[in-house]
């Protein structure tokens, strides 16, 4: 089912025309309302009047996560606070969170985009959908929730953390769709199997996102639960889930291109690359009011095609993600930067700056172990002393990352020292 045929199936020429009009308007809007962009464009020697169409977008400077950090919390907001109706936040690279704000119109656009994505999974107003993303500052829960309401579906706001209640309600309510991370859905399939509930569920479709996953995982989910699983993509800086999603042909993720203009660039040279070539995904939020971003570097590596899809949609499609151009990890759907761990450990006087993050997946749930070397003078020969220190570090890490980690204390010099760029992460999950 196509939610908005006009926007999703318009000819490429019409789309280019629409994007051009919206970009011209956006650039003037941010120049007039965001001091940061006014300065940066001035430094770059580009004026709003230089932007006459979408082809002029390459004249504009890029925006990065660091720019959001440097202007924390509201420095990039273009709308007055009285017009902002919602705040969300995600992990920053160090200490401070990345904060985004939405006007009522932004929320409406977001809901529209999520409704389009859910329609790609053939979810309709007749469905009962469990939203099992976290509700709160994270965009997953509320984003999926508002989109599903827009669709007119019956929304069950499960949030995260209680698999037993979720599976019980899935059976009792006859839920037909679910929105959650793909790894959590795999985990749920095991819970359902162990409880002997697999033949009692009415699930048809899953809209999975917030973390990278593979085709193999999709097949696994679809086979185990006898459903179709769709890959929904988004990031809070651009909006949240709903930026793109794959249709039943699973031939790439359709971008809501009338709102988010995509470019693929070479992360080294920052030059655009051709369709089909791997590069970093960059978005310009051409209709956003709260915190519009120009050429925001997502650091996600993918390729793009502008060919019409078998489903009838003409929107540009991005391939499954092939990795990141930075060191960000996504653990249990939460963005984690090694630099956050580093910044947190600096405040623990008992440990040295040497650490190693081991990411793995057990029973389809992400695990994070952080190995830290304790300063020799803080060792104790009592188990309870070691346990106290372990707990202290675990608390500091939990506060910094927003997810729990298992802390393993290591003897001095037991963590590998690398020559050159330090390696702080071992990711055994094979997600790309």
């Amino acid at each position, binding site marked *: 089912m196509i939610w908005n045929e006009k926007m999703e199936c318009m000819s490429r020429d019409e789309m280019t025309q629409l994007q051009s009009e919206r970009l011209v308007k956006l650039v003037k809007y941010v120049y007039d309302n965001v001091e940061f962009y006014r300065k940066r464009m001035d430094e770059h020697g580009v004026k709003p009047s230089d932007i006459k169409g979408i082809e002029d977008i390459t004249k504009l400077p890029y925006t990065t996560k660091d720019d959001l950090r440097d202007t924390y919390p509201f420095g990039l907001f273009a709308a007055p606070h009285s017009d902002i109706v919602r705040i969300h936040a995600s992990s920053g690279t160090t200490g401070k969170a990345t904060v985004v704000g939405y006007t009522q119109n932004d929320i409406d656009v977001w809901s529209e985009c999520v409704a389009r994505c859910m329609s790609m999974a053939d979810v309709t107003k007749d469905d009962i959908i469990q939203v099992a993303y976290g509700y709160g500052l994270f965009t997953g829960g509320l984003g999926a929730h508002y989109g599903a309401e827009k669709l007119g579906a019956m929304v069950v706001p499960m949030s995260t953390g209680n698999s037993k209640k979720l599976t019980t309600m899935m059976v009792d309510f006859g839920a037909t769709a679910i929105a959650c991370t793909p790894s959590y859905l795999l985990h749920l399939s095991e819970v359902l199997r162990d409880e002997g509930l697999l033949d009692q569920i009415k699930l048809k479709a899953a809209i999975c996102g917030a973390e990278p996953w593979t085709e193999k995982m999709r097949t696994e989910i679809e086979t185990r639960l006898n459903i179709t699983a769709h890959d929904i993509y988004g990031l809070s800086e651009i909006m949240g889930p709903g930026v793109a999603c794959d249709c039943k042909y699973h031939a790439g993720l359709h971008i809501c291109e009338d709102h988010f203009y995509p470019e693929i660039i070479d992360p080294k040279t920052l030059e655009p690359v051709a369709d089909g070539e791997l590069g970093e995904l960059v978005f310009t939020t051409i209709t956003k009011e709260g915190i519009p971003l120009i050429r925001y570097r997502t650091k996600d590596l993918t390729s793009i095609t502008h060919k019409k899809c078998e489903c009838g949609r003409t929107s540009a499609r991005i391939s499954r993600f092939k990795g990141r151009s930075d060191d960000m990890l996504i653990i249990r759907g939460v963005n984690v930067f090694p630099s956050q761990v580093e910044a947190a450990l600096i405040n623990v006087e008992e440990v040295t700056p040497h650490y190693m993050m081991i990411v793995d997946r057990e029973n389809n749930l992400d695990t994070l172990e952080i190995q830290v070397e*304790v300063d*020799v003078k803080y*060792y*104790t*020969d*009592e*188990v*309870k002393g*070691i346990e106290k220190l372990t707990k202290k570090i675990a608390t500091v890490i939990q506060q910094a990352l927003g997810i729990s980690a298992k802390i*393993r*204390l*290591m*003897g*001095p*010099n*037991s963590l590998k020292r690398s020559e050159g760029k330090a390696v702080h992460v071992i990711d055994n999950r094979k997600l790309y």
Partner: protein
Amino acid sequence: MTVKQLSVFIENRRGRLGEVLKVLKDNNVNILSMSLADTTEYGLLRLIVNNPEHGRDVLLDAGFSSMLTEVLIIKVPHVAGSLQRILTLIAENEIDIEYMYGLSVETTDASIVVKTNALDLACKVLKSSHIDTMTPEEIASL
């Protein structure tokens, strides 16, 4: 009187304990008794050695987190109930035992190594009850 115990933190890794013991062997530090508190992730090796200061230094130089801990080595006569009597005395004086293990050296008496939360008080209590503790010199001469 207290003596110095050599304590070493060892993360659980195959061969790690052997590495510690090799450093001690190469530096002629003799182990008189040992205890290993093990958890799933690490072990705490506690050693009574003939030369604890030297043992600590050579282990630190070799990159191990070693430290000295004051403990009591209490002589326990080979008579049924003597250990129970000592522990009762310690408990009655509201002293907590952090850990304990036997000293495996052949003498006329048995001995136990005890770490408590109040070593001075423990010494005093034992002394007034005529319970002997070993001195560092005695340990060094074993």
